[in-house]
C-alpha cells in the first residue's frame, strides 16, 4: 500500500471516528414513532437503490414508523419523480427521504412539500436549492470523492499517461461536481497525467459500452479510465473483459456488480460508499426532522452513531470505501 | 351443345339489408364469349367476385366443367381455372412485370424462386401477344393500357379455362380496345370461355357470341348476339326505353370564357392554345396518355406549367393553384371519381359542400343546417338516389357518386366546367342524365370543356372537338364536320 492510500484511508477512518465521538446533546429526545415516511429513489429499478432502501427500511423498523413506503418512478428523471413527491404530499406523509434525480427540476415541488409541513431530507443526491430541503445526507464532499478517484487511477497507472472520464448523463449533477474537482486536482497533483476528455454514457449500459469503445478508438494509447458511476464502470469492465486490453479502470461501482471483474483482473480497485448507510441515516434525519418542528437537529443519533450537520445542512458519512481482491467477496454479498 | 363450361343457377346473396343476387343464372360454353350486361348495382360485380373466390353465395349452384365450384378462396378459384381481368388493373408497383404475372406462384427451382425462368416465361407470353415491354422493369410508371395487358398476360399464364373481363375497356382508347378484343377472340378460339362485362354496347356486339342481362340481382334475359339489338338490350337493362342518349339542347354561343395560349409542361404537353366560349361544349379528344387530362389539370392549377398563359374572361391567371382557379370560376370534375372526386367515407352533405364552405360560414363557423340544405337541393336537382344526406358516398352506386361530384362543382356556380371522362364506368341510364345535365348547363350559359375517350359521347355532345396526340393539339373539328374516322385519324396519327 502506498503512502497515499494510507493517507486517504486514515482520513476516512478519522472522519468516522470524529463523527462517532461527537457527543449528543443531553436533551435530545428520541424521534417520534408512528411516522409516515416516503422513501423516493431516483428510480425503483436501479440496483443501487435497493441497498439504499434496505437501509431506510432498517431505520424505519427501529424508529417504529407507521409507514415507510418505497415509491418512485421507473425512469431516473426529476419530472418523473415529481408525481411521487405529490403523492407524498397528498397522502400527508410526515417526511420524505429523497435521492434527487435532478438538482433543479424538483424545487417547486419541494417548496410545496415544505409548505404542506412535510420534512424533506435528501440522501445520496442533493438538490441545488438547499432551502427546499431540511438536510442532506451525502457520502463525502464532492472534492474528496473526485480527488480520491484521481488518486486511485494515478496509483494504478504510475502517475503518468492519458486518462479519460466515462461519466453518467451530461447533466448529472453529482458527477459534474466530482469531475470539476478532478479537473482541478489532476494538473496540481499529477502533472504527467493528461485528461483527454469526458464521455457521457447516460447511465445506460448500451451507451456506456459504446462510449468506452469510442474512447479506445480515439485514444488507442489510453492508460486509464475513471468512471464515477456504477453503470459506467461496470460497462467499461465488461467491455475490457470481452475484448481484452490493458487500460486501467477505476471509479465508483457496486461491489456486487463488480465482483466478477475484480476477481477476473479487469479492475484492480474501485470505491463506493455504502448506500445502506445513506438510506439509514437519511431516514433517521427525516424522522428527527418530523419529530422536532420540521428542523433537523444540529446533531442526532442514528443507530449507534451520532451525526452532525455541516454547512448548508449537509451531513457527510465519510470517504468512499475501496474494494479490491481482498474484500470484494465479502462486500459483494452485502450491496 | 355439349356440357357448358360454367353453369350458375339460382345464385342468391344478401349483404345486410341488400339482396345483391336474387336467383341469378349464367351459362358459359367453351369457346364462347358471353357479354354480361346490366346497370351498376344489377349484381354483375357480386357474381364476378363470387367466381373470384372473394364471396360465398347464400344459396345456389355453381358448376365449373360439371364439377361443383369451391367458393370463398381466391387461390382456390384460380386453381379451378378462373382468371379475372379487372377494370382497374391492380399491379404491384414495386414488383417487376415478370413477378406481377407470377405473383403468389413464382416458379421455383431448388426451393428458391427461379428469377430467370420467370423472366423467360413472361417474355415468351409477352411475345405471344405482341407486347413490347421489358419483363424486368418495375410496374411503377406503366400506362393503364400496358397494365391491362400485363393483367391479361397474368390470366393467360394461369392457363385459365374461364376468363372474366370486368369492364377492361373503360380506361382504354379505341386502338387499345381493338387489341383487347383481339385477345378475347383469341382466347375464345383456343376453346376457353370468356365473360365480357362492358358498358360499351358496340364492343359487346363486336366480340360477344351471346349476351346475358341482369337487373336487380336477377338474370333478365340471355340470348345469342344475332338475335338482339341495342334497343332490346337497353330495354332489358333499365326496364324501360331510353329515348335519347345524347340530348343536345341548342345553346347561344357567346363570348370567350377560357383562353389558353401556348401552354406547355415539360414531358407532358407542348404549346397548347384554344378557347372555350360561353354556352359551348368543347371536347378534348385523343388517346389516353396524349396529354388531355394533364392539360385540364394544368388549367385547374393542379399541375404546374412551364410556359404559356391561361386567361379567364379576360383576366390572366398567375401563380395558378386550384383555389385560385376556383376563384376565377373554373370547376374540374376529375378523371378518377373515387380518388380525386370524392371523400369516400364522408357524407353526401360534406362532399357537396366542400367546395363552397366559405359561403356557408357565419362568424367563421360552418353552418350545418345550410350545408345540408344545399346538398339536399342539389340532390333533388340531379335526381340523386340516396337514403340519407348524411350517408357516406361510398354507399352510393357509381352513377350516383358521379352526380355528387357534379353537385359539388355546380354548387360553385362556375363559368367554366371542365369534365374529365364524365361517364366512365357509369350505367346507361345515368349516363344519359349526365349528358342532359351538361347540355342544360351549356344552354344556361356555362362554358364546358369535356375530356372523353368515349367517341359517341364526344360526337354526340361537343360543339367543337380538339384532338390531342403526343402532347400536342393536332386537329380542331366543328360539330358539323365531326366523324369517328376523322377524330381517330387525328388521335392515332396518319397511319391509323
Amino acid at each position, binding site marked *: 500500500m502506498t503512502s497515499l492510500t494510507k493517507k486517504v484511508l486514515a482520513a476516512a477512518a478519522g472522519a468516522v471516528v470524529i463523527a462517532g465521538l461527537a457527543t449528543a446533546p443531553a436533551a435530545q429526545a428520541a424521534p417520534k414513532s408512528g411516522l409516515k415516511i416516503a422513501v423516493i429513489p431516483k428510480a425503483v429499478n436501479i440496483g443501487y437503490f435497493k441497498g439504499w432502501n434496505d437501509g431506510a427500511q432498517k431505520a424505519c423498523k427501529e424508529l417504529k414508523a407507521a409507514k415507510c413506503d418505497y415509491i418512485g418512478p421507473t425512469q431516473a428523471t426529476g419530472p418523473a419523480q415529481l408525481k411521487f413527491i405529490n403523492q407524498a404530499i397528498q397522502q400527508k406523509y410526515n417526511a420524505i427521504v429523497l435521492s434527487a434525480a435532478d438538482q433543479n427540476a424538483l424545487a417547486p415541488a419541494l417548496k410545496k412539500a415544505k409548505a404542506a409541513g412535510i420534512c424533506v431530507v435528501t440522501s445520496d443526491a442533493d438538490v441545488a436549492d438547499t432551502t427546499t430541503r431540511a438536510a442532506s445526507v451525502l457520502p463525502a464532499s464532492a472534492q474528496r470523492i473526485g480527488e480520491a478517484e484521481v488518486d486511485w487511477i494515478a496509483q494504478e497507472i504510475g502517475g503518468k499517461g492519458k486518462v479519460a472520464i466515462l461519466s453518467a448523463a451530461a447533466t448529472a449533477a453529482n458527477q459534474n461536481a466530482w469531475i470539476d474537482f478532478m479537473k482541478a486536482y489532476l494538473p496540481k497533483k499529477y502533472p504527467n497525467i493528461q485528461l483527454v476528455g469526458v464521455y457521457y454514457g447516460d447511465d445506460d449500459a448500451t451507451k456506456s459500452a459504446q462510449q468506452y469503445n469510442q474512447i479506445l478508438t480515439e485514444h488507442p494509447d489510453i492508460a486509464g479510465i475513471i468512471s464515477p458511476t456504477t453503470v459506467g464502470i461496470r460497462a467499461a469492465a465488461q467491455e475490457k473483459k*470481452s475484448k481484452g486490453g490493458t487500460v486501467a479502470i477505476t471509479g465508483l461501482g457496486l461491489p456486487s456488480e463488480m465482483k466478477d471483474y475484480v476477481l477476473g483482473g479487469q479492475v484492480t480497485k474501485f470505491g463506493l460508499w455504502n448506500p445502506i448507510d445513506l438510506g439509514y441515516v437519511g431516514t433517521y434525519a427525516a424522522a428527527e426532522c418530523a419529530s422536532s418542528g420540521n428542523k433537523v437537529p444540529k446533531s442526532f443519533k442514528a443507530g449507534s452513531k451520532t451525526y452532525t450537520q455541516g454547512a448548508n445542512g449537509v451531513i457527510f458519512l465519510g470517504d468512499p470505501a475501496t474494494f479490491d481482491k481482498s474484500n470484494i467477496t465479502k462486500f459483494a454479498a452485502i450491496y | 351443345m355439349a356440357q357448358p363450361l360454367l353453369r350458375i343457377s339460382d345464385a342468391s346473396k344478401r349483404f345486410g339489408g341488400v339482396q345483391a343476387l336474387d336467383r341469378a343464372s349464367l351459362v358459359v360454353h367453351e369457346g364462347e364469349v358471353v357479354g354480361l350486361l346490366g346497370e351498376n348495382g344489377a349484381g354483375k360485380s357480386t357474381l364476378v367476385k363470387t367466381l373470384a373466390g*372473394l364471396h360465398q353465395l347464400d344459396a345456389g349452384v355453381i358448376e365449373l366443367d360439371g364439377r361443383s365450384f369451391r367458393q370463398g378462396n381466391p387461390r382456390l378459384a384460380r386453381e379451378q381455372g378462373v382468371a379475372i381481368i379487372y377494370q382497374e388493373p391492380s399491379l404491384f408497383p414495386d414488383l417487376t412485370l415478370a413477378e406481377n404475372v407470377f405473383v403468389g406462384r413464382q416458379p421455383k427451382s431448388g426451393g428458391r424462386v427461379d428469377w430467370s425462368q420467370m423472366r423467360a416465361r413472361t417474355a415468351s407470353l409477352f411475345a405471344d401477344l405482341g407486347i413490347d415491354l421489358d419483363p424486368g422493369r418495375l410496374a411503377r410508371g406503366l400506362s393503364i393500357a400496358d397494365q391491362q395487358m400485363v393483367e391479361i398476360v397474368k390470366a393467360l399464364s394461369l392457363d385459365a379455362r374461364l376468363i372474366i373481363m370486368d369492364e377492361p375497356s373503360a380506361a382504354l382508347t379505341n386502338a387499345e380496345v381493338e387489341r383487347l378484343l383481339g385477345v378475347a377472340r383469341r382466347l375464345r378460339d383456343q376453346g376457353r370461355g370468356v365473360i365480357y362485362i362492358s358498358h360499351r354496347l358496340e364492343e359487346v356486339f363486336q366480340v360477344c357470341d351471346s349476351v346475358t342481362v341482369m337487373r336487380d340481382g336477377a338474370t333478365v334475359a340471355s340470348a345469342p348476339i344475332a338475335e338482339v339489338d341495342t334497343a332490346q338490350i337497353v330495354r332489358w337493362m333499365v326496364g324501360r326505353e331510353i329515348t335519347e342518349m345524347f340530348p343536345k339542347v341548342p345553346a347561344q354561343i357567346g363570348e370567350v370564357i377560357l383562353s389558353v395560349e401556348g401552354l406547355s409542361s415539360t414531358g407532358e404537353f407542348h404549346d397548347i392554345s384554344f378557347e372555350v366560349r360561353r354556352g359551348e361544349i368543347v371536347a378534348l379528344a385523343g388517346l389516353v396518355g396524349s396529354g388531355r387530362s394533364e392539360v385540364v389539370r394544368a388549367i385547374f392549377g393542379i399541375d404546374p406549367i412551364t410556359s404559356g398563359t391561361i386567361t379567364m374572361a379576360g383576366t390572366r391567371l398567375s401563380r395558378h393553384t386550384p383555389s385560385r382557379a376556383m376563384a376565377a370560376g373554373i370547376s374540374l370534375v376529375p378523371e378518377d371519381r373515387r380518388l380525386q372526386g370524392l371523400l369516400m367515407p364522408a357524407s353526401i352533405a360534406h362532399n357537396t359542400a366542400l367546395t363552397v364552405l366559405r359561403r356557408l360560414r357565419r362568424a367563421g363557423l360552418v353552418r350545418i343546417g345550410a350545408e345540408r340544405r344545399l346538398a339536399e337541393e342539389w340532390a333533388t336537382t340531379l335526381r340523386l338516389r340516396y337514403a340519407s344526406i348524411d350517408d357516406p358516398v361510398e354507399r352510393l352506386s357509381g352513377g350516383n357518386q358521379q352526380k355528387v361530384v357534379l353537385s359539388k362543382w355546380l354548387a360553385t356556380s362556375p363559368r367554366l366546367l371542365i369534365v374529365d371522362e364524365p361517364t366512365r364506368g357509369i350505367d346507361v341510364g345515368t349516363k344519359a342524365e349526365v349528358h342532359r345535365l351538361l347540355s342544360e348547363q351549356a344552354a344556361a350559359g356555362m362554358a364546358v370543356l369535356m375530356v372523353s375517350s368515349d367517341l359517341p359521347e364526344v360526337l354526340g355532345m361537343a360543339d367543337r372537338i380538339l384532338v390531342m396526340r403526343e402532347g400536342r393539339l393536332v386537329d380542331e373539328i366543328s360539330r358539323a364536320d365531326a366523324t369517328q374516322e376523322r377524330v381517330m385519324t387525328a388521335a392515332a396519327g396518319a397511319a391509323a
Partner: protein
Amino acid sequence: MSGGLSRVARLREVPVLSALIVLLLLTAILNPAFRGGEGLKAILIESALIAFLAAGQANLIIMRHIDLSVSSTAGLVSFLIGNTSMNNMGISVPQSLMIAVAVGAAVGIVNGALVAYLKLPSLVVTIGTLYLVRGIFNYLAGGVTVTADALPGWVAAIGSGSILGVPDLFVIALILCVLMTIVQTSTRWGRDLYAIGSNPPAAARVGIPVAHREFAAFVLNGIIAGLAGMLLLFRFSFADATAGLGIELYVVAACVIGGVAIAGGVGTAMGALIGAVLLQAITFALGALGVSQFWQQAVAGALLVLAIAFDRIVALRSTQRINRLAEAPV
C-alpha cells in the same frame, strides 16, 4: 439472387453502402487511430443488435407495418434468462432459447392477432404492447440486477468472441440478415410480403393470404426480438430493468436508412443491416473526427435527416425519369 428484382433491390442499397464506405475511409484518413481495425470492430459490435432486430422489422415495414414493442420484448427476455441463471446457478443454451422463443412468440402472437385479424393499426397496437411488456418486465425485475458472475460462461464467451476478427455478435446478425434476405428475395412467402406492401388489396385479390402473412411476420419478428434479448445479454453480461430501453426507434431508423421505405414494398434485411452499421459508424466517426460530445448527437441527427431526404430525392428523380418515359403513372 439473380434476376431483375434483386438487381433493382440491390440498387437501393448501393448509395447506403457507398456512404458507409466513404464515411469509413474519410475517418480513417483524418484520424490515424481509426485505422487499426479496432474502430471498425467496435462499430460492428454496436450495430449487431440493431441489425439483428432490423431483420425482423424489415419484413413488417415492407408490408407497411411497424413493431415498436421489440425493445421491451428483448429487454424482458434478457432479464428473464439472466434471472433464471442467477436463481438456478446457470442456464443452458436450449433453456435460454426456449425462454427467448416463448416470450418473443407470445408478444408476436398478441401483436399479430390484433393487427392481422382484428385489422388494428400496428403503430397503435405496438405502442400499447411496448408499454405493456415494459411494465410487466419492470414489475418482474424491480431493482434486481443480474451480473456477470451469475451468468454461465458461454454467455460471455459468445459476447466477447470473434470469428476471423469479426465479432460473434455481428456474425450472428449477419447470418440472420443474409437468411432473411434470401427468404425475402427467393421464397414465395417473402415475395408475398412485397406484394402486400406494394398493393394490399391487389395482394388479397391474387389469393395471397394477407392476414396469415401479416400474422406470421409479426410472430417471426417477436421471436427475433426474443432472440435479440439473448444478444443483449451476450453483449453486456448484465441485465436489469433498463435493458433494451428505447432502441426501437434506432431499429426503425436503421431500416429506413438502409432502404426499407416506410411506404412499403421495397428494401431488404441486408439493406437494413447496412443501415444499422452506417448509423453506428456516423456516431463513431464523429468522435474519431474530434466533434465535441455535445455536438455529436445533433450532427448525427442532422445526418439521419439528410440520409432520409437523400434516399427520397434519389427515388423522386428516378420516378420522374420513368414517368417521362412512360405515358401515365400507375
